[in-house]
């Protein structure tokens, strides 16, 4: 692990910035802050994967801190009974921890009031085994959601479940998709105003993407917003006011595609959703267009790789911004969206921050959809910049993909400058902690046939380490100065989520199983623990019933980056797992599969 510092002392700099801001605008705080309505005072619980609606993944607990973290030790563990990638965030509410496993999506409730947190109940949803055949990138699940005494989750075979959180008894289940059309579900639901928001996966199977709101009490569909197709399906109506002119016009979700191609064009919704209660808007990104072979779908392919702002009550779109018009590199737009109020050119703005797969970190006015800035946080040559007038990226013609030609060394890869693994934001340091990848790829488009329920990709890809040879990085990014403050280099992709705490710590895991705590201001390693398998999960912090802070993480390698281990793939064919095998040949020598929950605390 190597750390590079990008300025002498972030603390000093931040203090300086604060003074400068105070002089310029005495009434305005300089530090970006999540809106209070979306990130209320910390109650020590962790009810949703991203901690709060602003998606900060920040815990204000500080019992475990940079001084005493060296004493942190395993408190209890719990076997998940599964071998696939354990990407879920443990959820804590009402003295109970809720954990969902990858397929077959077991849900466990652990009683935190008792020593060793014994099993309180378990729920076995029995998803269709055949659903494993339509999951592009391991059979993962990213977490349950707790709301109002209920647990909500999706199963790989396109069902949403609601359980009584106290007993594990099923309240309802809703079939919302169909595996025979290539649809699967992996995302963690978000519950907003009595509605359970869920989306589909399957951008590599010719799926038509959607986000659906289910009534939390009944499971009935309240609204569904497709990502492609006519305006009435996309829920684009009179309230839709995109910032950029190219996004205005009738049925752009049809007219920016070859005839009919939007019906199998992707734009799935398998990532993260944020919610601003003040503006009453939800925000999420749609995934890549399909097939990957761009020659089969000329046009901008709206509304794929697009951030939508929608009214959660009706689903009506308010604005949209497309990161990758006519995406040629599988740059899904599903990565996390963090809501901050922050100074921009001397004025406080309500923004969202989004580190996209394409390696740009976007800052967007979340009221209007106006692009404020887009800065590369990792190696990037597929674009040469973003036109601030139009909001469109400037395509590098040398890295456009073609049938019959292998285009070499495109950065970032299809898996992105970062993939789904979510960042954390600390309002104490003002830094965004981004776990990400440092990889490039060779890409050849190939003609592909659409056969319903099978892959619809049309590209032969081989990934490889990026500049410097390290495949992963954790970057602390200052959204105000638009620069990195420190970077930790990791040999393997940083494919776990990040957690920031008031103890001046940032937690993340590595794909060979180290769970690490680093100094939030400097990136210096403060503590580490070797778990049983590679980590691709999401760390959380919570206040246990005994009043003490605890940290939890799932270990269990897998996901796209770890599929070579969890799927026992053969390293001799670098095109395996959509080209990921090429970059991860050595992972089988570094770790073995197997899911386990680890919970850590200080000795009492």
């Amino acid at each position, binding site marked *: 692990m190597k750390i590079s510092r990008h300025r002498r002392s972030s603390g000093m700099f931040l203090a300086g910035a604060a003074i400068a801001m105070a002089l310029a605008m005495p009434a305005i705080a300089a530090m970006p802050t999540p809106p209070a309505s979306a990130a209320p005072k910390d109650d020590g619980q962790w009810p949703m994967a991203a901690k709060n609606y602003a998606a900060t993944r920040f815990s204000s607990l500080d019992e475990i801190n940079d001084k005493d973290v060296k004493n942190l030790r395993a408190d209890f563990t719990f076997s998940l009974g599964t071998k696939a990638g354990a990407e879920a965030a443990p959820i804590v509410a009402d003295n109970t921890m809720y954990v969902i496993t990858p397929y077959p999506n077991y849900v466990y409730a652990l009683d935190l009031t008792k020593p060793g947190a014994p099993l309180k109940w378990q729920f076995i949803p029995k998803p269709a085994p055949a659903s494993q055949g339509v999951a592009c990138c391991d059979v993962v699940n990213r977490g349950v959601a707790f709301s109002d005494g209920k647990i909500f989750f999706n199963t790989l075979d396109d069902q949403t479940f609601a359980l009584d959180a106290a007993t594990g008894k099923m309240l309802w289940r809703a079939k919302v998709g169909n595996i025979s059309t290539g649809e699967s579900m992996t995302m963690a639901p978000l519950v907003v105003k009595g509605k359970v928001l869920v989306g589909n996966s399957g951008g590599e199977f010719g799926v038509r993407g959607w986000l659906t709101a289910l009534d939390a009490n009944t499971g009935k569909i309240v609204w569904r917003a497709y990502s492609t197709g006519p305006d009435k399906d996309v829920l684009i109506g009179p309230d839709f006011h995109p910032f950029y002119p190219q996004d205005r016009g009738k049925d752009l979700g049809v007219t920016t595609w070859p005839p009919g191609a939007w019906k199998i064009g992707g734009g799935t919704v398998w990532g993260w959703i944020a919610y601003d209660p003040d503006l009453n808007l939800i925000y999420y990104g749609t995934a890549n267009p399909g097939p990957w072979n761009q020659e089969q779908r000329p046009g901008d392919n709206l509304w794929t790789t697009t951030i939508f702002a929608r009214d959660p009550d009706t689903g009506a779109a308010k604005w949209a911004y497309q990161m990758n018009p006519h995406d040629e590199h599988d740059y899904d737009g599903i990565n996390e969206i963090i809501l901050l109020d922050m100074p921009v050119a001397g004025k406080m703005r309500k923004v969202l921050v989004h580190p996209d797969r394409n390696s740009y970190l976007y800052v967007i006015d979340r009221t209007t959809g106006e692009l404020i800035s887009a800065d590369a946080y990792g190696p990037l040559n597929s674009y040469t910049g973003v036109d601030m007038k139009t909001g469109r990226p400037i395509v590098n013609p040398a890295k456009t993909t073609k049938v019959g030609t292998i285009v070499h060394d495109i950065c970032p890869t299809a898996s992105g400058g970062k993939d789904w693994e979510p960042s954390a934001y600390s309002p104490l340091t003002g830094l965004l902690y981004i776990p990400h990848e440092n990889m490039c790829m060779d890409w050849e488009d190939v003609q592909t046939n659409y056969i319903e329920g099978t892959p619809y990709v049309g590209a032969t890809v081989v990934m490889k380490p990026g500049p410097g040879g390290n495949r992963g990085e954790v970057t602390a990014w200052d959204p105000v100065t638009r620069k990195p403050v420190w970077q930790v280099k990791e040999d393997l992709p940083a494919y776990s989520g990040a957690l920031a705490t008031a103890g001046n710590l940032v937690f993340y895991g590595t794909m060979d199983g180290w769970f690490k705590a680093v100094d939030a201001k400097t990136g210096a390693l403060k503590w580490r623990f070797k778990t049983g398998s590679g980590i691709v999960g999401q760390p959380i912090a919570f206040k246990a019933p005994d009043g003490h802070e605890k940290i939890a993480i799932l270990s269990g390698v897998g996901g796209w980056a770890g599929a070579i281990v969890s799927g026992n793939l053969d390293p001799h*064919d670098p095109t395996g797992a959509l080209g990921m095998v090429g970059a991860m040949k050595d992972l089988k020598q570094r770790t073995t599969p197997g899911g386990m929950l680890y919970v850590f605390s200080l000795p009492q």
Partner: protein
Amino acid sequence: MSSRSRNNRWRGPTLIAATLVLGLAGTTGLRAQDKTALTATPMPVAVTTLFPGGGAMPPLNPVAKKYDGNAQAIAAGARLFDWYNCSGCHFHGAGGIGPALMDDTWIYGGRIDQIYDSIARGRPNGMPSWQGKIPANELWEIAAYVRSLSAPEATKGGPGETEPKPSPPPVGTPPQAMPQTVPGYDK
């Protein structure tokens, strides 16, 4: 889904398959001779090595024997493997969505008739069933190719056989680069 729309869904690939059959019939000789292969279903195969009271796998039937290790069948199978999107899940042997095919691990058996059976009938953990969707002779060719990915060099095929390339070239061009009507979406 009505049977009509099911037929529509398969129109594209069937056309492609028909082109392939016409294109290859003269060169392999196998298709012309072996009419039975178009309709034949294989003998029921065991996918276990445990036979209570003794016993063993029956020997390969004559149809399976014809395809097993046949160079032309393997080459045709390599193209069909891409054509029917097998490579979308298994890639060029590494696996990804489906299991690896170039290693020496076989969940449901690595004999050509067992591989045929896996492709035709599907397997419960995600392998689709292709029987009735892909003609039997093509299923045999795909099975021959899959077996060649991991078989020892000696059994990989006769003269003229070339190593499977990472990216086998497609056969001809598809009937249409982009479907004018999208199969399966006629609602």
